[in-house]
């Protein structure tokens, strides 16, 4: 791909001793530069992790996990509402996204070159590139507007769409790693396709699929943008209070569940975002504590699932 004049100059360089020295120096300098750039990219990672731990650990206490927020300007209190909200939202997201994602991945892995298979794989890639704020607008139109109010349900749907492509892709790749003879053995023994998929292929790929789900959950639990106008936020959200008042007024289980899922909720990243914009130092401090909890969760899940995934993958490949 080099032009002919450049190749000629290369030949001349190659023939002279000075040229050889110069080429060797260029080589070492450029290789060192790539190493330095790698270190440069690691600096922000270390900086963020260390600083968030340093700030967050000062403001984490039991109340942070067990109490509702106090009114503005009054120190103390916690973010129980956000922690419960995050759990509700991610559970809903998992519920909505995991079953269809795994089914879609089975299709994409077995019919990769059929028109629908190509379209599904392509849409998965495209969907993972759609800005999450747009997914927020979509769920606003899809759930919030018809319902007439913000809700945990809408937020759960939004996070499910965020998780969906992540799970499809990891599941699809894990299914492809399952050795073909295993499938063939099952089919040869007379098992139907669906039986082979469910009782041979999926169990063999299960660990990888769980990795994908965990990575998806980690991603969803850190998302803020799609929740801004779906889950909205709710400083008084407390599952305990809802259940207590529900039991006191003798509501049925379904009514209580509806009140848990059908009200606006907060989540840790949403709280972090709102608190960071407020001029009250105790709120900013709690934002740091929330950042620490969130980051610890995301990083632990990421590292653990990658370690696990790697071990399983090499096992499956027989290494």
């Amino acid at each position, binding site marked *: 791909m080099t032009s002919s004049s450049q190749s000629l100059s290369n030949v001349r360089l*190659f023939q002279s001793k000075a040229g050889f020295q110069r080429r060797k120096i260029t080589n070492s300098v450029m290789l060192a530069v790539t190493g330095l750039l*790698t270190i440069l990219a690691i600096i922000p990672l270390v900086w963020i992790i260390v600083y968030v731990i340093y700030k967050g650990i000062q403001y984490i206490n039991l109340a942070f996990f067990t109490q509702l927020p106090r009114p503005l300007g009054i120190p103390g209190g916690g973010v129980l509402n956000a922690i419960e909200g995050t759990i509700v939202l991610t559970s809903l997201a998992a519920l909505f996204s995991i079953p269809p994602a795994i089914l879609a991945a089975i299709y994409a892995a077995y019919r990769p070159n059929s028109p629908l298979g190509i379209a*599904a794989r392509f849409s998965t890639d495209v969907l993972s590139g759609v800005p999450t704020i747009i997914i927020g607008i979509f769920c606003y139109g899809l759930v919030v507007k018809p319902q007439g109010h913000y809700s945990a349900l809408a937020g759960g749907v939004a996070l499910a769409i965020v998780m969906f492509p992540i799970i499809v892709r990891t599941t699809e790749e894990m299914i492809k790693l399952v050795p073909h003879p295993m499938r063939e053995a099952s089919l040869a023994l007379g098992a139907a396709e669906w039986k082979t998929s469910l009782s041979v292929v999926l169990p063999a790929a299960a660990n990888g699929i769980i990795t994908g789900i965990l990575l998806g959950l980690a991603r969803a639990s850190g998302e*803020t943008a799609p929740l801004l106008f779906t889950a909205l936020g709710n400083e008084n959200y407390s599952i305990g209070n809802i259940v207590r008042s529900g039991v006191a007024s003798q509501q049925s289980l379904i009514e209580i569940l509806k009140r848990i899922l059908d009200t606006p909720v907060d989540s840790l990243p949403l709280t972090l975002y709102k608190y960071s914009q407020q001029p009250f130092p105790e709120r900013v401090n709690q934002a740091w504590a929330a950042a620490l909890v969130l980051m610890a969760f995301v990083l632990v899940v990421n590292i653990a699932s990658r370690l696990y995934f790697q071990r399983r993958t090499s096992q499956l490949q027989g290494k």
Partner: protein
Amino acid sequence: MLKTSDSPLSPRSINTRIRKTLHYGDRPWFVLVGMAAVLILLLVLGIGWLLWTDSSLARTAFGLNFFLPTSNASWNPVRDVYLSWPFIYGTLMTSIVALIIALPVSLGIAIFLAELSPAWLRQPLGWMVELLAAIPSVIYGLWGIFVFLPLVVVPVGSFLGLTLGQIPLLSLFFKGPIPASGSSRLAAGLILSIMITPTIAAVTRDVFMAIPQSQREASLALGATRWETISQVLLPYGLSGILGAVILGFGRALGETMAVTMVIGNSIEGTLSLLRPGYTMSSVIANEFAEAVNILHSQALIYVGLILFVITLLLNMGARFLVWRVARKTSTEVRA
């Protein structure tokens, strides 16, 4: 072979019977998994359709003027006039700044990880770079507001304002002073550059890994140094894949919301300068959508979302096509 198709013992009927028993329940199963596959397709189409229909009023009211460059930076919910050029400009400028910084860094990482790194270092380093992508956007924002802006952006910004800001043409983009808080387009661009580096680096590394070993061996055997092999053989070979990685990173920068919203200052000023606060498409949606009571206002915001969606969609499709081309050449699986 006898052709007695009615006999229960004919080969054909036995075949059908075997197939029926063995594949019992397969058709509903394929319908089920096929429907799940269609669901992904429907989601992408549904997002586009909803953005299109829900912005119809704004589209008819403002038409193409909505996103064309204009000196009249008008976004006024009180007078119900909405022109999105300031947001588009903010999104483009911050993403371009991010790309200019992230590109060389990511290339360096990819080359180091794929070509030079000792095997034991490759995986941990790769993971560390990928962890950068796992940290939630709001945490970048929080760190940005309280650490990165005062310590890095303000000094760098004032320096740029005093140097490049004095040169006639460049002063348009580097006119100071940078706000004391550091909130500016430059801040958003710098944070974005950190956030998109792992995206570009990971895909570029995979592209390098997909290049056949024979290419390297041939070049080294001809007497080229390692750097010459990388820059004159591997880079041209993987160029379209690397371009795909860059476009992918650019797309991520365009759509990134929270970190940008937290550090860009969210204000519409007449200035083009990087050192002044600005606004992006995603941050205006994040800030105003929940409070937009006026129908035209919320439709205008959805219109902004539609433009953002179409841009990122096209970029994504283009990028994946480019990466897929490299992978096809080498018959290994690389997906962006």
